């Protein structure tokens, strides 16, 4: 047996497996994780495939170790990923913050299940969406992508790696148990058909290198360990040299840049799929598996003569504030189905600013919405 190449072709696979294959297609060669339903299959697939493509799979003793191991691997110059669900996601929060503070490219996958706490381990939820934005302490920007199918999770995992290298930040994939466990056709293109964004390396000699001196897009070039740059980096508030600086001025400069790094590059980062939104009276705004269920309700509503649009959030964070603000002036209402008691709906409502109604269609978790519940909400909103 010789070293395997990434897969190419058409496959029937579930979302977890597709996610693992997306990582491998993206050049991920390090996975550190811990078993947790419903993300375990990602770890299992990586343990099977990574050694065959020359990568390393390691199962760490807990989720904190997993998060830190992928940061270390990334600093050694290897693309790295971990995968978990709600309880593990909570454990990873402190060190996700370390990744953000050190500006470490990596991908963290959350196959959401119903919470809080142990909840329903084998059943769907979407209750970690706000945690994805604010889960670690302090102020920062974050990128989170939300796939709705195995094909999409394959593609978005590649996109996640690209965004993480481009913006030197951990990127989250906020998927869910249904997408993870559903099996569908996944088309994997040949490697030549996949664009990968390379890590931005310093173009100065080590004596002149400043680990956190940003380029024009607010992203600093990154030296890896063992390349002779002899850098120091810390989770403490630091200056461009990477040294800890304990004052408000350094804090202001650093935190503003960490937030603006994502904010100012929003146009490049945000991806939303729109269908029939222009001229709509009601726009259904959703993400993940709920976006797929919504599609059915949207089609039925249109058959009933309601001018309905579908706005699928592929990027949930950063949230497409301007688009919602603009649409709010022209539509009657946004209908937001999500498998929680209202999280992204809060963002929609905030951005709508009262110009349009925001109608939450909640579901506490354990199953996906009945399309009729979304259809009912559309009908009511259209009146």
């Amino acid at each position: 047996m010789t070293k395997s190449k990434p897969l190419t072709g058409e496959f029937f696979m579930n979302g977890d497996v597709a996610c693992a294959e997306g990582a491998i297609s993206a050049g991920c060669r390090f996975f550190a994780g811990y078993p947790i339903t419903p993300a375990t299959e990602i770890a299992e697939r990586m343990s099977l495939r990574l050694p065959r493509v020359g990568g390393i799979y390691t199962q760490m003793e807990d989720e904190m170790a997993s998060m830190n191991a992928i940061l270390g691997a990334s600093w050694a110059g290897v693309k790295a990923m971990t995968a978990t669900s709600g309880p593990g996601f909570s454990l990873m929060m402190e060190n996700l913050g370390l990744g953000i503070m050190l500006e470490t490219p990596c991908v963290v996958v959350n196959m959401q299940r119903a919470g809080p706490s142990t909840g329903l381990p084998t059943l769907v939820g979407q209750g970690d969406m706000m945690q994805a934005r604010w889960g670690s302490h302090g102020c920062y920007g974050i990128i989170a992508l939300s796939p709705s199918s195995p094909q999409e999770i394959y593609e978005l995992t590649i996109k996640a790696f690209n965004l993480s290298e481009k913006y030197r930040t951990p990127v989250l994939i906020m998927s869910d148990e249904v997408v993870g466990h559903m099996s569908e056709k996944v088309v994997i293109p040949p490697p030549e058909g996949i664009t990968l964004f390379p890590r931005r390396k310093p173009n100065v000699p080590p004596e002149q290198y400043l680990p956190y001196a940003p380029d024009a897009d607010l992203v600093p070039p990154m030296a890896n360990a063992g390349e002779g740059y002899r850098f120091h980096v810390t989770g403490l508030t630091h200056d461009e040299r990477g040294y800890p600086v304990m004052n408000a001025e350094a804090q202001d400069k650093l935190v503003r840049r960490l937030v603006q790094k994502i904010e100012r590059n929003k146009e490049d980062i945000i991806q939303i799929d729109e269908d029939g939104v222009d001229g709509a009276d009601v726009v259904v705004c959703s993400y993940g598996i709920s976006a797929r269920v919504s599609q059915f309700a949207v089609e039925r509503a249109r058959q009933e003569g309601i001018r309905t649009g579908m706005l699928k959030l592929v990027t949930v964070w950063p949230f497409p504030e301007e688009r919602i603000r603009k649409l709010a002036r022209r539509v009657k209402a946004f209908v937001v189905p999500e498998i929680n008691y209202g999280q992204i709906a809060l963002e929609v409502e905030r951005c709508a600013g009262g110009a349009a109604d925001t109608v939450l269609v909640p579901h506490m978790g354990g199953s996906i919405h009945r399309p009729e519940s979304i259809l009912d909400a559309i009908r009511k909103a259209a009146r």
Partner: protein
Amino acid sequence: MNQAILEQKHPMDAYLREDRIPHIWCPGCGLGIILHSFLRGLLKSGLPLDKVAVVSGIGCTGRAAGYVKLDSFHTTHGRAIPFATGLKLAKPELKVVVFSGDGDLVAIGGNHLIHAARRNVDMTVICVNNFNYGMTGGQLGPTTPLMARTPTSPYGNPEPPFNIPYLVAASGAVYVARWTAMHVRWLEKSVSEALLKRGFSLVEVISPCPTVYGNMNRQPTGLDQMRYYREKSVVRNGANPKNVDISLNGEIIVGKFVDIERPTFSDRQEEITRRIFAPELPERDTSQQEATEV
């Protein structure tokens, strides 16, 4: 003011971030000594400095990473070891050193410590033990001697401490030694040996902490504690780690306790790779490589 300091040079300045000297450690703290011995041991080992990565956690000892002119990472509390594991597995040519304190490595980081030793990840851990959480004011930790006074044990510490050499030896470490900040020459030699050793090596270094621990336990200066080490430490190379507990003002047994051979984590991963790519080759019998019990 810094100009006057910078005008004066020390031979070790080549390996320190001299724009950050003087360091933040208190007068009488042993960390500067330990850092010096560590650097000397590193130089003596002959390892290429560009390939050395130092990872530290949170605490006074954790600040050491910020003073060395090497690729260095000051990470979160207790997580230096898994971070270092990721570095090492992803880039095996790196020499990874974890430089951290007793609270960081043995309390919040305790789980990672024993697992890394169990796996025998190739790394060198310098565990500075000053018997308390110094940075936050001297609170008790898992190595604080029984009945010692600290701000969170004002009536005496009711918890028996860990015996760190015993803990890591039992978990599978291949090199275990303990010295104090006074044993500078032994320490330098141990550091060299540990760095060149394949597998999980740990050197525990007992260090004075006059400002907090010492102050509350009748050893208010670093000198008091160094004198205590001189009086009460006993060099016993080859001692059974089981027997090297430290009690308040008791004997401190120092020495090299464990030096064995075991397949490293990378060896085992390579074995897996061999199975994938060459299943027709006979499996290697690694039982001879397993160490006998210390």
